């Protein structure tokens, strides 16, 4: 098809043949159209569906209800999100002498803190995952048993994280923190709706000024 037509040179003594009529159709407009459509669909189509981060909020509880118990927190960590993507954290309950530390959203910041605090659970889950991978395909009873263990381990985890934020924290900050929890497999965390406590506010303001 892409051949080179020969002729023209030499071969003078040959018979004259009737010229064969080409049956070729010019396809250029067709190609133009096809590519136009192609470009249109490539540009307008939404390919990847967006991903979602699931957030589950507890039922609203009445604080005056005697049946509502305040959870006992042994290994507590409080994270405070503030303006300009700054992030602070402290352990346990807040007292006058508590040191509030600053960190950031990078891999060596918040993630390191979380991995350190959540080490027991991370290691336990790792072991269980290895166990899971050894189970032969189709052995659902064993698989369920391991899954139950995973659930038990996450329920037993004593690390409880409170996420507090002031009025300047952005939505992106919250999603970033939740994402870090997902990565470091933190089992228990709460996003606190109330404003910062006065002492917290005072300490954070001092930090922000310095």
């Amino acid at each position, binding site marked *: 098809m892409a051949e080179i037509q020969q002729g023209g*040179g030499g071969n003078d003594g040959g018979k004259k043949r009737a010229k064969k009529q080409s049956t070729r159709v010019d396809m250029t407009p067709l*190609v133009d159209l096809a590519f136009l459509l*192609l470009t249109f669909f490539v540009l307008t*189509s939404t390919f990847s569906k967006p991903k979602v981060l699931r*957030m589950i909020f507890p039922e609203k509880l009445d604080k005056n209800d005697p049946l509502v118990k305040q959870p006992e927190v042994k290994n507590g960590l409080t994270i405070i*999100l503030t303006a300009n993507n700054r992030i602070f954290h402290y352990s346990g309950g807040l007292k006058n002498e508590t040191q509030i530390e600053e960190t950031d959203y990078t891999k060596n910041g918040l993630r390191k803190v979380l991995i350190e605090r959540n080490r027991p659970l991370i290691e336990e889950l790792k072991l269980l995952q290895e166990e899971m991978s050894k189970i032969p395909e189709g052995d659902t009873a064993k698989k369920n048993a391991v899954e139950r263990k995973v659930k038990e381990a996450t329920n037993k985890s004593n690390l409880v994280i409170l996420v507090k934020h002031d009025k300047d924290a952005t*939505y992106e900050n919250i*999603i970033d923190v939740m994402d870090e929890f997902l990565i470091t497999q933190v089992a228990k965390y709460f996003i606190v709706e109330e404003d910062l406590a006065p002492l917290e506010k005072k300490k954070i303001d001092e930090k922000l000024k310095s």
Partner: protein
Amino acid sequence: MPKIKMPRSTPALDMTPMVDLAFLLVTFFMLTSSFRAPEPVILDPPSSTTELQIPKQVFLIMIDEEGRTFVDITNNAVKAKVVKQMLNQFKAPGMTEEDMKKFAGVGPVGLSVREFQGFVDMEAGERNGYTQKGVPYDTAASKLKNSELYYWAYFTKIEAHNDYKQREEEAKLRNMEFDKSNYIQVAVKAASNAKYNTVQHVIQVLREARIKEFQMITGLESAPE
């Protein structure tokens, strides 16, 4: 000396395989693409490493950085029913069934009930230029349950449940397997730089309507090792 004549040739190229390929791709994109509904605001959601897919059917709430909210229900039949309930609840002048269906098809809206009819009457181009103020909501604790946003959530929850039951029964009648994944879930798409306080206010309103689970729409980010 005889001149060397270069053979004349037409550089004809066989384009058939190329055309084949081009049309194959066109067909592929035509069949796989779903068109994006025109959105009244362009939001840039934050990214996360989660791999959860967005549910097939959602009650979408969009929040922009100024705190305006826009709502949409991906199931147009359910949306039309919710619109009807909304009009009743706020005693707005009724709309014809046809207008309600049309309204359900225009994508996310951030309008007060009283603007519905006017919005349907507009031409498509006019609609794009119309500044929507957002679905009204009130953050005062005593008024959480009075706002239009609350009723959007409330009626959607009821209609979503009805729709689910209805389809379940239909599937039973026809002896077909019932696709449970079509249940309408609540998805929130908020701008990265929106204040979390604003998002929290919206979530508080929705929680009043006994919605507990939210799918926060995020962009994709590569997972860490």
